């Protein structure tokens, strides 16, 4: 680990060049993959329903973007993206908040934690997505709440389990220090257990954010309004416009990545002490 005290003292051009050097390999790999994809599909004359060319997917995107920019018309793709985004985000927020809240309550009493954790761990290994048709039945197939419910349940368990771990796996001496101050359980929670749990919570959120999107899209495969990414993909695929189905897959990926990046940024804001340890990864 570096003992550096000048994390951000480099000048702007230096920083920019550093960023370029850092990201250049990634960008080159991305461009290379797209070029290889395009040329392989052309050379081997692969049918578009098996694998459409990136250029074809790109042109479908342009059509949708033009529809979006034209005030006269509507873009189904972007409407679907918005709907799925709201479902995933809503479910993520509800599920993670509930997970953290329940963890805070159960971790207060060791007995409850010990009694509930095996069930939480068991529930975490259940393929909850299988409940999607049931949720559709409960809340209505076109009601976004049915998808949010599935997403909430999927992200609830990893968040709760990790938070409980973070609250209870406290360094023995760090805890004894609190006892030496005759600190109340509430103060121990606030000043030791919760900060100790933050890295655990964030690693749960890193797992939960892509899960939320998988949950939403797959739940939509079981049925939902036309303007959702899952329905969009199934409809376009059954209509043999695979390039258009791919645009929805790309949008779903973009939402997933945006969630993940948001979690990373939040991590830096809420755990500034962690930044340096991470930069050495």
């Amino acid at each position, binding site marked *: 680990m570096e003992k550096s*005290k000048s994390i951000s003292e480099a000048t702007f051009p230096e920083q920019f060049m550093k960023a370029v050097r850092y990201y250049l390999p990634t960008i080159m790999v991305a461009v290379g993959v797209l070029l290889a994809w395009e040329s392989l599909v052309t050379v081997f004359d692969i049918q578009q329903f098996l694998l459409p060319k990136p250029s074809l997917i790109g042109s479908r995107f342009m059509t949708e973007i033009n529809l979006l920019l034209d005030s006269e018309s509507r873009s189904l793709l972007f409407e679907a993206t918005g709907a799925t985004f709201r479902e995933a985000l809503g479910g993520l927020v509800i599920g993670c908040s509930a997970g953290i809240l329940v963890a805070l309550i159960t971790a207060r009493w060791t007995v409850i934690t010990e009694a509930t954790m095996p069930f939480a761990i068991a529930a975490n290994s259940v393929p909850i997505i299988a409940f999607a048709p049931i949720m559709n039945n409960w809340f209505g197939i076109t009601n976004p709440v049915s998808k949010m419910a599935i997403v909430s349940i999927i992200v609830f368990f990893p968040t709760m389990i990790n938070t409980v771990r973070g609250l209870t796996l406290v360094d023995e001496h760090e805890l*004894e*220090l609190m006892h030496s101050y005759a*600190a109340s359980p509430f103060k121990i929670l606030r000043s030791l257990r919760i900060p100790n749990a933050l890295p655990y919570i964030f690693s749960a959120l890193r797992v939960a954010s892509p899960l939320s999107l998988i949950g939403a899209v797959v739940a939509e495969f079981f049925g939902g309004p036309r303007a959702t990414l899952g329905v969009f993909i199934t409809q376009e695929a059954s209509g043999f416009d695979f390039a258009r189905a791919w645009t929805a897959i790309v949008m779903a990926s973009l939402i997933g990545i945006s969630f993940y990046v948001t979690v990373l940024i939040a991590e830096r804001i809420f755990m500034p002490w962690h930044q340096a*340890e991470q930069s050495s990864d």
Partner: protein
Amino acid sequence: MAEVKNDEQHAIFAENVYKIFNPKTENEVVALEDVNLTAQPGEFISLIGPSGCGKSTLLRLIADLITPTSGTLHINGKTPHQSRLDRDYGMVFQAATLYQWRSVQKNVELPLEIMGYPNTVRQQRAREMLEMVELEGFGKHYPWQLSGGMQQRVSIARALAFEPSLLLMDEPFGALDEFTRERMNMELLRIWRTANVTVVFVTHSISEAVFLSSRIVVMSPRPGRITNIVNNTLPYPRDNDTRELPQYFQTVTEVRELLRDAHEVE
């Protein structure tokens, strides 16, 4: 609160103290047997002995992190429990045990925060403490940015921030290299004078015990017990020259022989 008349002047008063872990089971361990020890306010007492001699156990009994199986133990004339509630002691562990999510300044403020001191007092006191351990200017750093010796100094500053009458140290410099350790020893003596506290210092280094303490409690294992208490008459203030004095070597030899004798008794 149990007031005891005859030991009010003692910082520590232990009489026939026993600590038995897992009593009346197969895993029964007599960690401490018949411990008798008194300490006057302002003393610097070292507990020394091989591992398993119960020196850390004795320290933890004083800190009320564990309770004696039998015997009388009073801290400042009170039960250890009451003395912990009164925040009579500050604790320093072998690892600095700083909270990694808090800056150095905030770590020193931690006990004051728990004890409900107002914000301005906290900041002021933490600054003074960091000055005392010669770490002014490091308040905004995070623990990982400091060396091991600096972290342990922060830990001492934190332990003394609320002005306890007693400083309990469990092998605080055990993880440091020899040079850093000797520098920290000098520093600790200076702090001890400044802060006017009673120090109980657990160590397995003979030279450290002799250099620092006014009395050295020699302990031996299985069962853990006190075998000797050496009065260390080396004059204070002590500095690097103290380590060259014939009396220093004599005391080191004396303690070493006592430790060896205690070992051979087994």
